[in-house]
């Protein structure tokens, strides 16, 4: 019990990732090789980039399901501009711009019209994907210059480290510090915990939320660029299903879907963990079908373990459950087991 009470899921997740790498290195000799690590990092690059900004959104009590469509649209925009201007820097700029705009649209619909972000982004998910087809349809783009695409397999300064690590570190540190030790970060948590109380301490709730959607759009756009480089191609049906992977990782990391709780290190750990476990299982000849099952089970466990731990604590903490509890009313983060006292 003691252990359970002091058990903190968010601290545990990165440990889990590390442990997987460690155990994996024994389990399969090919696992912890520089080559495989390169692939591992490349394979989680886009997801992690989006996860950074998505964490902010979820902590603030919002969500964005349209990220993969945004990434795809930015990728298509990149391809389209390249096709017509033949200028890579310009194309990249356009791609990032498109992403940012998409995010802004989501944000405005949520903050101005007061729509639920879940509903809005289901809509924009379809819209942005549709625009990809409008933009490219079945056109064949002229191939990207190798100077651009070779970024992917040329390691940093000739090492095995892929370039995307730079982005991950830079943005990871930036977002991490912002969320956990700046005023903005505290605001995000406050908004997620109580929009009302946030207003009473003068936090510009709408502006912040809008900003979060914009930054999320930008990151999705960046992921789109990375995606384009990695696969040397831009296609309207590219970058599918990222939103579920990102959200799954965030939820696994104990970010509360109701807002107000979550840590970036846990999310980063979760993304790495999923990447590592998949890579390891693939090396062990698990099929894609089995990988899917594993992912789902992980997700279920990630909420069940803390919840069950919490249950036990709750019992010991308060014998007489509050009205709310006996009614099974629970609108509280699954990461904190204690019941609110009436």
């Amino acid at each position, binding site marked *: 019990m003691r252990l359970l009470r002091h058990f903190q899921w968010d601290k545990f997740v990165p440990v889990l990732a590390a442990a997987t790498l460690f155990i994996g290195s024994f389990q399969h000799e090919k696992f912890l090789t520089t080559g495989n690590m390169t692939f591992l990092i490349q394979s989680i690059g886009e997801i992690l980039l989006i996860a950074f900004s998505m964490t902010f959104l979820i902590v603030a009590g919002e969500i964005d*399901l349209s990220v993969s469509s945004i990434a795809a649209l930015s990728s298509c925009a990149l391809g389209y501009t390249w096709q017509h201007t033949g200028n890579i820097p310009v194309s990249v700029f356009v791609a990032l711009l498109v992403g940012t705009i998409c995010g802004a649209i989501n944000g405005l*619909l949520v903050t101005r*019209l*007061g*729509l*639920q972000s*879940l*509903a*809005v982004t*289901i*809509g*924009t*998910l*379809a*819209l*942005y*994907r*549709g*625009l990809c*087809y*409008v933009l490219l*349809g079945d056109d064949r783009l002229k191939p990207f210059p190798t100077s651009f695409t070779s970024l992917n397999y040329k390691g940093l300064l000739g090492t095995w480290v892929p370039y995307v690590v730079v982005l991950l570190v830079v943005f990871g540190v930036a977002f991490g510090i912002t969320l956990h030790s700046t005023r903005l970060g505290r605001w995000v948590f406050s908004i997620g915990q109580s929009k009302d109380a946030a207003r009473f301490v003068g936090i510009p709730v709408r502006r912040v939320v809008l900003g979060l959607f914009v930054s999320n759009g930008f990151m999705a756009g960046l992921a789109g660029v990375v995606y384009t480089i990695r696969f040397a191609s831009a296609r309207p049906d590219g970058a599918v299903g990222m939103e*579920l992977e990102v*959200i*799954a990782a965030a*939820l696994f990391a104990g970010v*509360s*879907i*109701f807002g107000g709780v979550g840590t970036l290190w846990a999310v980063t750990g979760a993304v790495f963990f999923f990447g590592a476990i998949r890579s390891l299982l693939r090396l062990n000849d698990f*099929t*894609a*079908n*089995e*990988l*899917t*099952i*594993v*992912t*789902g*089970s992980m*997700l*279920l466990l*990630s*909420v*069940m373990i803390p*919840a*069950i731990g919490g*249950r036990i604590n709750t019992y010991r903490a308060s014998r007489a459950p*509050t*009205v*709310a509890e*006996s*009614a*099974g*009313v*629970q*609108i509280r983060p*699954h990461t904190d087991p204690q019941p609110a006292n*009436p």
Partner: protein
Amino acid sequence: MTTVAPVATPPPARPASVLAGRATLLRRRELPVGIALLVVLVGTSISNHRFLSSQGRTDLMLAAAITGMVAIGETFVLLMRKVDLSVGSTLGLAAYAAGTAIKDGGDGQLLKAFVVGIAVGLCVGLFNGLLIALLDLPALVVTLGTLYVVAGIQAKIVGGERITADHLPADFISFGVDRFLGVPKLMWIVIAIGIVASLYLRHAHSGRDLYAVGSNPPAAALVGIPVRTRTIVAYLVSGGCAGAAGVLFVARLGGVDANAGGGYELAVIAACVVGGVNIFGGSGTVVGALLGAMLLRTIGFSLSALSIPEFWQQAVNGALLLVAISADRVVTIRRDRAERTRHR
């Protein structure tokens, strides 16, 4: 000391007149959807006479039947401020199970197919329900998890062994397309279930509880409604409907592959939202959800029938979806503001 009251209390209101507004019309959130549907139907058929030909109607209804069936179940869950993302993969698994059950057998196994399919659905529903109701786990996470697990299991057992038309009983295949009184049999089933569900939600004591819980959970507990039980039931219904939808799926497409049912969840939730089912519980009807499903599929078809360029269709679809959501929101705000000013 009212802040200590165990029930959520609205902010103190200012004095107001005792005018009681007529809400009967406002409550009919299906109305706008129905009208929209009518507009699309009529509008399109004017420019394309074949759109509402007997075959055209059949196509529309067949297309909407499966989404509609799932939407019925999803409505139960949404009404209680919960959500079920696992319906898509549940549909796929049930479809395969049902298909296998009657595969290479003779005619007259329709019932068997449904029993098997629905049974599979109920299992998934029960699993979700228990986790969510008893452990108070967030519905979104749990059902996202089961979405993955079930999809994986389905793909694993199906593999390349897809069920094809020539494995299925002839009467089952024809059941997928036959019409009765000009309406496809599949649609009749959806209608039948829809009616039962509506009657339950409207006229059954336990059905009303779903609305009460979704509308004000703590208060619902205070008047002694068994919230946990109702939650489990809602998920059972959702699972069962997804299972039944799976059977319709096999019948309509004459086969199942490993990816059957993928992506249905979002389409279904969209249908419910458009149909005026509040994602945050308490209001909405099965009829609305069905109309929503009908509307979305109809729009999809009309875009083709109106020869909107292929590559524009999805974009237009997404845009229309946004419009629908925003419109619904605006209407709600208007109504609430109207009532507030009238009463405070």
